[in-house]
């Protein structure tokens, strides 16, 4: 059944609709929150709080809006409030990157894929996940929304409440920082 129909049923207080929505969004929402706060226990708590907030606010949800964006905005607000309370420093804007003009990319060799690359894929992804966890919150957020949730730039702008140009700029910087972090962790491009 479509999300819209579940939302309409939830507005009438139908618990089954809520169950279906939670099941449908569980992985995406949990992953997003985990990328934001990095601690599974905190992500779980925020996951619960997000759905309680959904129940509380569903009547004020404008049905013409995108439910995905609304849900992730609620989750985001809760995560940011939580981070502000627990670890205010984690919300700091990153400092200007002096390395941006460097040709870090040139130092990372571009290899053709070999069977060995495929065998090491899982290891590479773990390395990327770990490097991603070391990025500032807003960079982790834009990466997970774009690549893992496959949201369009317009949807990301809606969730994060910033202009399209800012989303693009954050996306570019987050990719650059991630690449730099990977290169710093695994010199010689061993992560590739």
């Amino acid at each position, binding site marked *: 059944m479509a999300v819209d129909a579940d939302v309409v049923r939830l507005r009438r207080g139908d618990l089954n609709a809520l169950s279906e929505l939670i099941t449908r969004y569980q992985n995406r929402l949990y992953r997003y929150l985990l990328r934001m706060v990095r601690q599974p226990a905190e992500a779980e708590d925020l996951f619960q709080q997000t759905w309680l907030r959904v129940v509380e606010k569903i009547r004020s949800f404008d049905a013409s809006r995108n439910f995905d964006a609304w849900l992730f905005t609620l989750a985001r607000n809760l995560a940011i409030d939580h981070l502000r309370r627990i670890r205010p420093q984690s919300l700091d804007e990153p400092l200007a990157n002096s390395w941006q003009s460097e040709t870090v990319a040139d130092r990372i060799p*571009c290899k053709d894929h070999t069977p060995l690359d495929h065998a090491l894929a899982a290891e590479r992804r773990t390395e*990327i996940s770990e490097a991603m966890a070391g990025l500032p919150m807003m960079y982790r957020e834009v990466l997970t929304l774009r*690549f893992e949730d496959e949201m369009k730039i317009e949807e990301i702008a809606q969730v994060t409440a910033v202009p399209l140009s800012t989303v693009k700029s954050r996306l570019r910087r987050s990719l650059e920082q991630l690449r730099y972090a990977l290169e710093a962790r695994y010199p010689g491009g061993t992560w590739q």
Partner: protein
Amino acid sequence: MSEHDKFRELLALAAADALTSAEEKQVAEHVRSCIACSDELGAWRPLASELRRLPTPQPSSWLLQSTLARAEAKLTEQAEHDWNRRVLIVVVAFAWLLMIASWLVFRVVSGRFGSLLEPQFSHTWISFAAFTALGWLAGGVAAVMLAVRQRGERRLA
């Protein structure tokens, strides 16, 4: 900033499929004629590709059940709250109607038997008003006490 540098800045976004179709076309044209940018784009692509395939952390089944249970409690609480509000509105409206109706009845009765009641009229009227005010006051106090108790119970739960 040279044209080359401008395109170079767009390469990460190109790998992320985050360019407009016009930008995409321009970048593609530039990359065809620029080996450095072509290599750079080639270096971005594996990272973008791996990011799309990162393992998805799974929430525990306990979390889902617990979330559903809490949400159910919240829904029930909201439904109860809505019901209480509706009942309160009806009760208040009924109380007002009753008071107005009883006042009208009282006027009719006092008009018909005015001569009999005349000596005690002011006393009876004051008693009636005092009784009504007392009833409203008691009702209000009871409502406040109930709300405080209910809130306390919810907090403990």
